[in-house]
């Protein structure tokens, strides 16, 4: 099912044109990072740690360097040693020194797969052979893999120099607790005392990976003037430039990043892994060097989302009013500080209006790869805790779960538990749309075929969305088409949505806008394609740049007709004189006269908008479980979401459907499986099983549009909130089917069978 959206209000927005890069993508013509070829290109390989935690006593590269065809072998000794500076990457922050140690280990390796050396050679096989000849002498240390173990006194210490913080105070001595922060509002003790029912539970979630199919890649040159050029697949050229420059201790302006097409990211292609390594190999060899990651290393060495330990406690009155809630969110950051626990804290209670709240968040380092953003980072885990507790409360109250959520819904003016006051939001509208859906109003037959048990679950989620910086230029061609240059790399069709917003302003068809993603020297600073910000902020910039074009075209028309600019009106794609209706030119006609009225017209805009409106999603899921095998099949799934305004409804639906596919995998199958030595043992697509066409039903989408007053077209971020409630939705459906609450992910066949056995 699809919903009609803004039809009628706009000419271009709300329609479904073919994406501008569509044919490049079905013919093999699109150039992704691994496809780049340069003259005199060398191939690289990275040697990685087989241990989850070990001290590097020595590295002997002599045999590798002696192998014919090898041009350079590097270790951390070849890195300049980055400054201890925290930088914001748009979706998460990093410390340059830790980032440098993450791309090439210093005195310790902190997870299996941690790079320890790299090679450049004439061909890939020689590079691999050389890497195998590097002798690393390790002193193996005991690893620590989970948050709760890492917080125990006497736990192995991951980072010996970590200065831990607890509620603003420095922790004495060595610790794995990077931080503990708290948001507190009202009086939770009083609130729980007023409650008739109080439910509290603890949860464990497994670390999972973003799972993009394109592995990381980077190709670099370091020239005689100390200028570095990087070709890569990234969610942001400028953040890649900043990380690479920071690690290499170069000015940002000495690094140029040329973004190629990107084969998925979901947050995982914000951090840089290979770029600085390829650059140093190029510095050492004087030739361009290419590094391609293997799948195993993508799992073992690049940013997954945290495993967690969480607890959530909610109190309600018998009439269904929430009186108080507390949450304790403990996230593993991986090997370096910086888990998304802060974002989880911002989201955990934000579907609701709760008078008394306390949220504790812990950022904890463990011997696992450094976590990275993954689609609404931190919010999915938090929603799993909160929304399954809410489900239990609804069951205890005998209250319809959507009615309960509408009764307690956050609204305009509600204070979010971490402080901000909600502007206009669509929580009520989203729940109302779910209540009116065909899915919710079609009763589920509880007995499936062959003794299978069926259940229905519902849950909701919130994501705040972000704005940040974007720049766009629009150049008018004499044939009336326009070239639109943006800095946002296009992961899922954003060229189309950005072009459509410019087309809407200019009064031309979307097809007459030619969008182009520029490199870091071809456009103004633009933050990551992440945080659900691209269509919002880059679209905002496209709107403003198109307005700038309109201003300039009005001036050209005034010049042409020798009248004052104020005399020129722009409406419906035409420029006309207010006093003389005969004087009227379409955009296209006026464009053809630019050469004779002063030359090309180029509009530009750079924005940093503050009004990214938060978004809500409510999801309904029907499942069928085979009690003999524990296998769960998702048989029907509906996602309802407030998107503000759907620019290209097909891509909005695509984001919603894609996120649901990911959270079904997260709920039922996906996990980092570690052995006793702390090493991941399922680092292949065969063993880390992600959903395929056989695992998913058609995912039904219902678009709700509560326009965001903070955007000229009412856009809210779309890409992230659809994953937030998914794991909880599946958990609630499992409870409905079996009468069992699973509070550990993944909720796979094994855990379902064990729970059924324990229940008997």
């Amino acid at each position, binding site marked *: 099912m699809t919903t009609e959206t803004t039809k009628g209000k706009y000419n271009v927005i709300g329609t479904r044109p073919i994406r501008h890069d569509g044919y490049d*993508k079905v013919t093999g013509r699109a150039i992704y990072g691994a496809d780049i070829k340069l003259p005199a290109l060398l191939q690289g390989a990275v040697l990685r740690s087989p241990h989850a935690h070990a001290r590097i006593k020595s590295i002997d590269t002599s045999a590798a360097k002696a192998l014919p065809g090898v041009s350079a072998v590097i270790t951390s000794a070849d890195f300049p040693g980055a400054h201890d500076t925290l930088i914001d990457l748009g979706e998460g922050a990093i410390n340059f020194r830790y980032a440098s140690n993450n791309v090439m280990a210093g005195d310790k390796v902190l997870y299996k797969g941690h790079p320890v050396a790299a090679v450049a050679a004439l061909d890939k096989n020689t590079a691999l052979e050389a890497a195998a000849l590097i002798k690393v002498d390790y002193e193996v240390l005991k690893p620590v893999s989970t948050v709760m173990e890492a917080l125990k006194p006497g736990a192995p210490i991951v980072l010996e120099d970590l200065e831990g913080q607890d509620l603003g105070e420095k922790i004495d001595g060595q610790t794995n607790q990077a931080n503990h922060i708290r948001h507190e509002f009202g009086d939770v003790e009083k609130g729980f005392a007023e409650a008739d029912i109080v439910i509290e539970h603890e949860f464990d979630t497994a670390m999972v990976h*973003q799972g993009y199919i394109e592995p990381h890649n980077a190709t670099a040159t370091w020239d005689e003037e100390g200028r570095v050029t990087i070709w890569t697949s990234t969610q942001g050229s400028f953040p890649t430039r900043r990380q690479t420059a920071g690690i290499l201790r170069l000015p940002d302006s000495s690094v140029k990043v040329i973004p190629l097409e990107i084969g998925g990211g979901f947050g995982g292609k914000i951090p840089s892994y290979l770029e600085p390594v390829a650059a140093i190999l190029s510095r050492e060899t004087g030739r361009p060097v290419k590094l391609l990651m293997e799948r195993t290393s993508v799992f073992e060495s690049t940013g997954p989302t945290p495993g967690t330990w969480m607890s959530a406690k909610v109190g309600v009155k018998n009439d269904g009013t929430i009186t108080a809630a507390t949450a304790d969110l403990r996230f593993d950051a991986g090997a370096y500080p910086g888990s998304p626990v802060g974002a989880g804290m911002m989201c955990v209670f934000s579907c609701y209006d709760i008078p008394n709240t306390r949220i504790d968040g812990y950022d904890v380092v463990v011997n696992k790869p450094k976590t990275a953003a993954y689609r609404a980072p931190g919010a999915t885990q938090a929603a799993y805790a909160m929304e399954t507790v809410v489900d239990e409360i609804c069951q205890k109250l005998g209250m319809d779960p959507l009615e309960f959520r509408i009764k307690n819904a956050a609204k305009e003016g509600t204070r979010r538990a971490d402080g901000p006051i909600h502007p206009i939001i669509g929580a009520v509208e989203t729940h109302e749309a779910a209540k009116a859906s065909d899915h919710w109003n079609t009763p589920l037959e509880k007995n499936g075929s062959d003794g299978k048990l069926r259940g229905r679950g519902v849950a909701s989620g919130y994501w705040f969305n972000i704005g940040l910086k974007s720049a766009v230029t629009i150049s008018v061609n004499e044939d009336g088409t326009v070239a639109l240059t943006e800095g946002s790399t296009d992961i899922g069709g954003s060229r189309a949505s950005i072009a459509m917003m410019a087309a809407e302003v200019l009064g031309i068809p979307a097809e007459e806008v030619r969008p182009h993603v520029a490199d870091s020297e071809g456009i103004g600073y633009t933050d990551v394609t992440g945080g659900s910000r691209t269509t919002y902020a880059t679209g905002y910039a496209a709107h403003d740049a198109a307005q700038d074009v309109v201003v300039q075209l009005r001036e050209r028309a005034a010049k042409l007709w020798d009248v004052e600019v104020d005399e020129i009106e722009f409406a419906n794609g035409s420029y006309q004189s207010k006093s003389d209706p005969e004087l009227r030119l379409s955009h296209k006609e006026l464009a053809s006269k630019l050469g004779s009225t002063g030359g090309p017209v180029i509009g530009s805009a750079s924005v940093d908008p503050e009004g990214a409106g938060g978004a809500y999603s409510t999801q309904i899921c029907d499942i069928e479980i085979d009690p003999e095998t524990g296998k769960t099949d998702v048989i029907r799934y509906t996602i309802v979401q407030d998107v503000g305004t759907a620019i290209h409804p097909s891509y909005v639906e695509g984001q919603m459907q894609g996120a649901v596919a990911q959270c079904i995998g997260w709920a039922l199958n996906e996990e980092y499986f570690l052995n006793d030595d702390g090493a991941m043992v399922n680092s292949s697509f065969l063993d880390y099983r992600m959903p395929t*066409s056989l695992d998913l039903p058609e995912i039904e989408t219902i678009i709700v549009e509560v326009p965001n007053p903070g955007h000229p077209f009412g856009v809210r971020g779309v890409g992230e909130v659809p994953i937030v409630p998914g794991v909880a939705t599946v958990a609630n459906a499992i409870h409905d089917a079996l009468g069992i609450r699973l509070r550990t992910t993944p909720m796979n066949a094994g855990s379902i069978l064990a729970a059924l056995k324990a229940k008997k």
Partner: protein
Amino acid sequence: MHLKVNDESLEVAVDAERTLLSVLRHELGLMGTKYGCGEGNCGACTVLIDGEATRSCITPVTSAGGREITTIEGLANGDELHPVQEAFVEHTAFQCAYCTSGFIMSSAALLDRNPSPSDAQIQSALSGHICRCGAYGRILKAVKSASGEGGAE
């Protein structure tokens, strides 16, 4: 050795242990076929060998010698795209599109042997492919519309 790729006969000098994917990409410059996992689990590297959808990342180049190899670059008939290619564009059957070449090749192979497949047959034929952007529903519609059923939406 002798390879026949996209209707062209080629002589290539390569090590026998190399994979077909490596030779296609690095010797012949056919970059439309993608590496995803190197273990035959994700389907991004799928090409046609004598019309059969085949994982080029686990196919030794020697086993493809003398046989008809078709890659995404050779699927169109001159200027006319294969109906599956057109349908993928029309149905927005991809987001990042990294897996798309593989999905298109397997879909083309399916329609070649079964011009009017059922939904279940399409899903089964594509079950060895992973699309992490989760475009499965749209891919199903695209393949259906390119099939004998035509525009079955």
